[in-house]
């Protein structure tokens, strides 16, 4: 079960990163959340063939990684881990859309390929932005920010609980799977006959635990509302950070900067 547990520690590692001390870490989580949302909206709203306009957006994740002192390789690995989902979404584009859009000498590139790459770039940009947000802020602080920005409370609480008990659940699963594999003497993967009771058992244990947690909550005066006291400060630094980046994203979105630079250089010669 090495892989499940390793992934568990990997997720925990993001929290370790979030306890950094750079100026980006110190910013109010709301500033980072809003900026990330702006970034994602701007990137996603670009047209499906507009690869060139996406290039300048790379500035944001790179700046964050460098000034937030985040490990580039770690983030890259996480992005590659989820890449198959994006590939699955885009892989049929080259088959469906065969209209030639770009002619580079004898090489002709179909619109399908361009939209495929645009999906992949968009995926890379948005996922890296989300990972950077969590690595700079911590999952819990992101949830607090969501709550302060007016996201529905039950939703935020669900997220917090999900994150809290994800580790316990993974722990429980890995123990069960290990117990099985120790007594299956190398008979390979989990058979369906074993898998079903295993999952059922896990569900029952989860329900049991949920019940115990609820009891523990009731014992300390839980009345259906979870109140979290946390004071956040949205000051000058936060306003400057959010406005500057949002403005930059807006420029990237409105003007095709690589094209303009290309024209400028071409005009110069």
């Amino acid at each position, binding site marked *: 079960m090495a892989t499940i547990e390793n992934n568990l520690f990997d997720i925990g590692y993001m929290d370790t990163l979030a306890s950094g001390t750079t100026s980006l870490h110190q910013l109010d989580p709301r500033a980072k959340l809003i900026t990330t949302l702006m970034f994602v909206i701007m990137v996603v709203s670009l047209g499906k063939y507009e690869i060139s306009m996406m290039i300048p957006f790379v500035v944001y994740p790179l700046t964050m990684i460098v000034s937030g002192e985040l490990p580039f390789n770690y983030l890259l690995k996480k992005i590659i881990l989820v890449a198959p989902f994006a590939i699955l979404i885009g892989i049929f584009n080259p088959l469906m859309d065969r209209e030639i859009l770009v002619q580079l000498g004898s090489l002709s590139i179909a619109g399908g390929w361009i939209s495929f790459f645009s999906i992949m770039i968009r995926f890379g940009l948005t996922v890296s932005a989300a990972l950077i947000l969590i690595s700079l802020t911590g999952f819990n602080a992101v949830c607090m920010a969501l709550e302060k920005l007016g996201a529905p409370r039950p939703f935020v609480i669900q997220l917090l609980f999900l994150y809290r008990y994800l580790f*316990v659940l993974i722990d429980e699963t890995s123990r069960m799977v290990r117990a099985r594999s120790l007594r299956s003497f190398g008979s390979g993967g989990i058979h369906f006959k074993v898998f079903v009771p295993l999952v059922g058992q896990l569900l029952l244990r989860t329900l049991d635990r949920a019940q115990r947690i609820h009891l523990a909550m009731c014992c300390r*005066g839980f009345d259906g509302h979870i109140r979290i006291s946390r004071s956040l400060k949205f000051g000058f630094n936060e306003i400057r950070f959010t406005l500057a980046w949002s403005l930059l994203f807006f420029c990237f979105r409105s003007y095709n900067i690589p094209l303009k630079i290309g024209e400028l250089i071409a005009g110069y010669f």
Partner: protein
Amino acid sequence: MSHHIVQADNLHYTYPDGTAGINSICFRITHGESVALVGANGAGKSTLLLHLNGCLIPSSGEIQIGDYPVNKKNLKAVRRSVGMVFQNPDDQLFMPTVFDDVAFGPINLGMHETEVGKRVLHALETVGAAHLINRPPYKLSGGEKRAVAIATVLATSPDILVMDEPTSNLDPMSRKRLINLLKTFEHTKIIATHDLDMALDLCERTIVLHKGKITADGPTIDLFNDESLLAHSGLEKPLRMQGCPICNKQQESQFFIPIKMDCAAG
């Protein structure tokens, strides 16, 4: 100080699936007493504990905490005076950080933010865990989790502390530290445990449960000397009262506890 009294009067409880829980339980625990609740697995210890703050409501009989009988109407008052530490700290620590978790109770009691902060810090300092305040609970060690779990309860300043197996899964040093910590508390304590050595350290009185019934209730040292009672209840003398293994071999025919205890101490 009548609000520190716990009194059970002919308690019966059967689980909805028909499993017998507890049967004809009667006792009275007065202010400041420290009582161990011992018995084999399935004797009904945890079931009884759950009655003490209204997590379970008895099928018949009555349990009274201070001036309040435990029922749906008095639940809030009862839970305010009875603090419960669960066996598994992962069940107890459900909030994202240690601070939030310890603050959960005081906030629910409607305290002001500054007061909550003070209480949290005080509770964590009491259990020696103030440095963990901003950590997420899943990153703590077993001993740290237990300490924080106790702090979550102390923060609501209960009159009565109820604990389910507080020393389980702890390494010997953490266990020792916990026992010393519990010794300093002046609350009324009710501790369900299999760790009879701890019971010997902390509780002057013991209640023995067997198959849902009380089979003995008296001074800890007397009950733990009664071998037939212990054997009948699926228990064994605390290790310290069993003497040292080397001397035991030499004196197998004799059975005199004080000497053996000296031997163990030496």
